[in-house]
């Protein structure tokens, strides 16, 4: 049975049109909500409860969240300090462990890797409860230190997994040459590996930034006021008279901009990074 060339071409055109349509729908579904949050953040309050697309944009909502009585400045600072400290401590620790797991024979390595991954299956709320009691006894509730400690626990298993995946893909001959030339093993790690695995380390850092920056449950439970981070501060806009949506949107934009920018910077390595560790 032969198909006339004309019908075939028509079919192809219809098919590619449908394909464009499907891609357009995907884009709309994922970006309309984001666009709507952005629009709402710049809306004057009388337009928030309408579906207006055209309005006089205002920065009033951003001013409102950073001035009395909301004062989001300190919460932003808390988020920044907690996340930075977590990454500065957590990423080198993870890099060391990942290097050791990637390059050396270690007794019970399989079990160790399984254990590291399986910690990700422990529901965080189980970890939160004993930590809440521990930090209360130590007088560390509502401090940034307590949040840095729990964030380290969250990111380290992920970071080891990600970085190990990248290290496994790097051939060892450069390292061996450096070792023969008299470079110490630690020197190899800090000079050569850091340079070679830069994309992997950056990707892991960004991934951990997102996890730590958006972390909600632990600061909700472990902080009251002094150590409250930005995601938890969103709850303050959930007042008795209802949520002030335009301010929520403005705070939301301040919250997501850093992680969105960072993620876009490493997007090429991002997805491969997470799956590499488990494949191969």
């Amino acid at each position, binding site marked *: 049975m032969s198909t006339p060339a004309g019908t075939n071409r028509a079919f192809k055109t219809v098919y590619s049109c449908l*394909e464009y349509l499907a*891609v357009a729908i*995907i884009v709309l579904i*994922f*970006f*309309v*909500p984001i666009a*709507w*949050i952005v629009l709402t953040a710049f809306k004057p309050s009388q337009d928030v409860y309408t579906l207006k697309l055209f309005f006089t944009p205002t920065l009033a909502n951003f001013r409102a969240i950073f001035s009395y009585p909301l004062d989001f400045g300190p919460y932003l600072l808390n988020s920044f300090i907690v996340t930075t400290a977590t990454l500065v401590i957590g990423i080198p620790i*993870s890099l*060391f*462990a990942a290097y*050791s797991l990637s390059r*050396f024979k*270690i007794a019970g390595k399989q079990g160790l890797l399984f*254990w*590291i*991954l*399986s*910690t990700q*299956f*422990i*529901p965080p*709320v*189980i*970890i939160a*409860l*004993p930590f809440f*009691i*521990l930090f209360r006894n130590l007088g560390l509730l509502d401090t940034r230190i307590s949040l840095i400690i729990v964030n*380290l*626990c969250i990111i*380290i298993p992920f970071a*080891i997994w990600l970085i190990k995946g990248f290290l496994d893909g790097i051939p060892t001959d450069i390292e061996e040459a450096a070792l023969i030339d008299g470079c110490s*093993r630690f020197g190899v790690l800090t000079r050569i590996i850091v340079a070679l695995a830069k994309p992997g380390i950056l990707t892991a850092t960004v991934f951990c930034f*997102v996890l730590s920056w*958006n972390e*909600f*449950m632990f600061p909700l439970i472990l902080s009251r006021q002094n150590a409250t981070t930005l*995601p*938890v501060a969103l709850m303050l806009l*959930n007042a008795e008279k209802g*949520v002030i*949506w335009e301010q*929520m*949107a403005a705070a*939301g934009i301040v*919250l*997501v901009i850093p*992680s*969105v920018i960072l*993620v876009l910077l490493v*997007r090429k390595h*991002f*997805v491969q990074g*997470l*799956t590499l560790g*488990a*494949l*191969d």
Partner: protein
Amino acid sequence: MRDKYLKYILLLPALIVIAATSFYPFIQSFWISLHNWNLMNSLTMGPFIGLSNYVQAFHDSGFWNSVKVTLIFTGLTVVLSLTISMAIALLLSKNKPYLSVIRGLLIIPFAMSPALIGFSWRFMLNPEYGLFSKLLGAVFPPLANVQWLGQPTYAMVALVSVILWMWIPFISLTLVSGRMSLPGDVFEAARVDGASPFQTFIHITLPLLRPIILIAVILQTMFALKAFDPVVTLTQGGPGVSTSILNYSVYQTAFQFFNMGYASALGYLLAVILVILAAFYMRLLVKGEGWR
């Protein structure tokens, strides 16, 4: 060789942190779960009551409700997410410049704060002025006046949709990277032999993608079972207890009712479910692929 010691020294700090987050809380919460302890009445742990908290859980309809809600929520999320992501991955995994731009941008929802998305959904699902309600009402008239967060079924749909929106881009991109790394000549050969696109998908794409699909299922299950932020900001477990997944119900028992002993027991039961699930997935993974 000094490497003999160095490899353990390098590993040690990370192992201490991981041990602190797995052994310590695991043992501690088990110990607490054997006691009757309400934080409102006393700052120190109450009397030892053995397994009573666990016995109580098995007779507690609230606990069984949470188990049911958790299973429905996780099942729906994993099945829908994987199906939709696979469709999106097939669409996007072609070498066209505009698709590469879309793939790059699709990582954005992953970076968004889940707590914020929960709140935003509440705003956009509002029947009076919400964008989603209005759009859905315009496209599907029967959905025009739905109180999305007022009815159990719709609230569950709303909650699942948040998780799907946040994770589908990530899962799709995972599958895209798997699909695009498959050798092109296999598909070329199938095309020459006259296989239909559907046959190619079932007999070539799916089997070749099996390991990466398995990883995507593991990740999606993990993310669904850990969902917490959107529950707090979107439904608060409601209406009633219809979206009170275990994670949230443990949180409520511990930090709103301050019943530490009982909450620990509930948390422990949740952990046991998760560990069994994890072991099951790991076995599948180890069977399929070499485990380094």
